[in-house]
């Protein structure tokens, strides 16, 4: 245990001291009245805790998410009371859905004014209760060390999530005897269950006698750092494995047993084979409705093994025949001991056959188009090739997100950062900013649409001020493409408010002194991408793509995964 230190400081200084003790190097924030004392301390400790000034609080929270997802560390954002707090609500809800550890330090009015409708007062505890793993209001400085220690512990342990600390200005200015001990236990909180060997054996028996076993993996593999164990497990058992959107990059894209992506716009084989396998092993994933389609017709033939850290996810959507509660890494380690070496070449081949069909009907047209207009798919694949599969891809939400998830390639974990559960447009640019600051030596590419980009484009100011070397690729189809696709397919092409009249994105980048280039022709694309990759510092590349392209395959909403369609 860390030895306790003791000294008289004010609450604001104490918060910074805790951040240093917790190993926080970068925070994202925006000052305001209720965090003035805190910002005074931030200035004092800036040599130890680097503060990044964003242009809107939403940018701060998404940047903290991007930072956390790229590094595995707890993301920290600091904002003021009232509107500062409400502006980060979207990011907090997003982090809750995607299990991203965050500590959000939010200013609050002075304690005597609580509940009086004071200037810039909002009920932050009430507002964030349903979208945080934990939240706590601090009204007195001496509460700071314990509350912050708990905040970091809760955010990062078990199934991670966002924590909000609502810190009254009163607590920030009060002086007290500061001493800090990190938290490693809360009696009412069991972050991880101990593995039950009987369950592991039961699962191993099912796996050992299966003819068509199939493994699905999600964010839990990345969170627990189980990438190596996952690979060992599938290699020992010969089981084909598919990733969820948030499981992307937990395995090498080109690994022979990686059969692709699940979900509404996932790959053909991974979807239809769900309903043909005899044992389904789900690791660190939660059967999101975008993965399952109609649950009544989801894998009814299969025995389901669910490896999951959060007991509330067991049987929530899909009933588990064997539930293994615990950490994915440890569960896989143990399971590897009990499973027999095996091969399922014929079964794995069936996925490859499906891929051939999908390649012919969808992929070829997407990444090697013969038509005049550029496609999102060819842009994403070309970028992936130029970075040799060694970059972090951050996406916004919509068609470019699905295309990026389908055609980008990964060699390293924590290389795909996207808003999965909440589907937050505007996530891309600020999250990429945070990812780049967390992994300054890695190439970070943000794929965004013309719609989502305009939701948080003010962060170009942050990118420019700190010269954050992100590469922003705007895939511009002058539409809210995914919504338009649904309107085309399910609303008889009634394009209700999905067409956008866009600004000159290049001039916009230039206004922020960010190098930019616009590509409209195929012959210019490769050169422009190389220029972007080779450029030191931030770069914005706008690619004008086919206006009315659709993302396929597609499992229509509410349909069975077997009913995936390859073309309209």
């Amino acid at each position: 245990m860390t030895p306790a230190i003791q000294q008289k400081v004010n609450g604001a200084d104490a918060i910074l001291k805790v951040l240093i003790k917790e190993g926080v190097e970068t925070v994202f924030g925006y000052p305001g009245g209720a965090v003035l004392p805190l910002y005074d301390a931030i200035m004092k400790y800036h040599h130890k805790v680097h503060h990044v000034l964003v242009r809107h609080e939403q940018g701060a929270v998404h940047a903290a998410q991007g930072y956390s997802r790229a590094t595995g560390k707890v993301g920290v954002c600091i904002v003021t009371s009232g509107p500062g707090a409400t502006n980060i609500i979207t990011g907090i809800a997003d982090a809750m859905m995607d299990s991203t550890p965050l500590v959000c330090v939010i200013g609050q009015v002075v304690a005597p004014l609580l509940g009086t409708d004071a200037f810039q007062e909002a009920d932050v505890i009430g507002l964030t209760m349903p979208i945080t793993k934990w939240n706590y209001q601090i009204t007195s400085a001496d509460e700071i060390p314990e509350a912050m220690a708990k905040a970091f512990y809760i955010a990062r342990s078990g199934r991670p999530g966002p924590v909000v600390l609502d810190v009254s200005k009163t607590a920030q200015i009060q002086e007290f005897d500061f001493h800090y001990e990190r938290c490693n236990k809360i009696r009412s909180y069991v972050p991880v269950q101990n593995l039950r060997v009987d369950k592991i054996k039961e699962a191993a028996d099912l796996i050992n006698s299966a003819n068509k076993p199939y493994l699905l993996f999600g964010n839990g593999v990345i969170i627990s750092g189980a990438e190596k164990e996952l690979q060992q497990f599938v290699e020992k058992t010969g089981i084909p494995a598919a990733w969820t959107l948030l499981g992307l990059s937990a395995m090498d894209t080109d690994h022979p047993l990686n059969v692709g992506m699940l979900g509404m716009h996932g790959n053909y084989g991974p979807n239809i084979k769900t309903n043909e396998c005899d044992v389904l092993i789900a690791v660190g994933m939660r059967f999101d409705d975008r993965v399952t389609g109609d649950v009544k017709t989801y894998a009814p033939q299969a025995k389901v093994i669910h490896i999951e850290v959060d007991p509330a996810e067991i049987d929530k959507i899909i009933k588990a025949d064997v539930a293994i509660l615990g950490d994915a890494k440890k569960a896989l380690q143990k399971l590897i001991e009990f499973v027999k070496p095996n091969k399922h070449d014929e079964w794995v081949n069936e996925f490859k056959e499906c891929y051939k069909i999908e390649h012919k009907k969808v992929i070829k047209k997407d990444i090697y188009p013969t038509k005049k207009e550029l496609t999102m798919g060819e842009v994403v694949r070309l970028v992936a090739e130029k970075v040799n599969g060694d970059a972090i891809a951050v996406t916004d939400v919509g068609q470019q997100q699905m295309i990026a998830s389908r055609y980008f390639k990964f060699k390293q974990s924590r290389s795909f950062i996207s808003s999965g559960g909440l589907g937050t447009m505007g996530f891309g640019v600020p999250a990429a900013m945070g990812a780049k600051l967390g992994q300054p030596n890695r190439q970070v590419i943000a794929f965004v649409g013309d719609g989502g980009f305009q939701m948080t484009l003010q962060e170009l100011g942050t990118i420019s001020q700190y010269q954050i070397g992100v590469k922003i690729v705007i895939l511009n189809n002058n539409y809210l493409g995914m919504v338009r696709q649904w309107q085309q397919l399910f609303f008889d092409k009634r394009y209700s408010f999905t067409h956008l009249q866009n600004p000159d994105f290049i001039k916009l980048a230039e206004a922020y002194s960010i190098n930019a280039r616009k590509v409209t022709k195929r012959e210019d694309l490769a050169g422009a991408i190389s220029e972007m990759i080779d450029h030191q510092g931030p770069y914005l590349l706008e690619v004008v793509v086919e206006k009315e392209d659709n993302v396929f395959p597609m499992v229509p909403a509410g349909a069975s995964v077997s009913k995936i369609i390859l073309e309209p």
Partner: protein
Amino acid sequence: MNQEFIISAFTENHIGLLNRITIIFTRRKINIESLTVSESALAGISKFTIVVNDTQDKVSKVVKQIDKLVEVLKAYYHTNEEMIYQEIALYKVPTEALTSSNQIESLVRQYNARILEVTSDYTVIEKTGKKEETQELFERLNQFGVLQFNRSGRVAITRSPIERLSAFLKDRDKLLASIE
């Protein structure tokens, strides 16, 4: 099929926890029929008793969500048959009605109720029992004009022998110590 379930939770006695628990029901549009919160046998630990009418599937999922809350020690649910439970009701009637005949007095005897306070104006009667019983007495007394009526939420204990809270906390300590 909907049926009545009793959800019990032991929690830390922290500000906001009631809200944290009730929004789990609100989000899923489940009505809380009755709710009782008070200190358990151990200081600092609260006991929630929540009655809902829903399917077992929904109730079991809600209980898991309650159990997931950081400040909840343990949550579980039972059917009515698995628990012994009571509610308490207070009735205020005009004292004149009590004195003008022996009917109220005989109702008090019949229903195993008792008189808490008598003044020249009013008399307060108390009865513990199941909701149907306290309701029945209300209807009988209301012939004489019930001035005020208040019924509590449910208090309940299980029929099956379950772990004592202090033993549970000891086990929890062991569990937490075993987690790396």
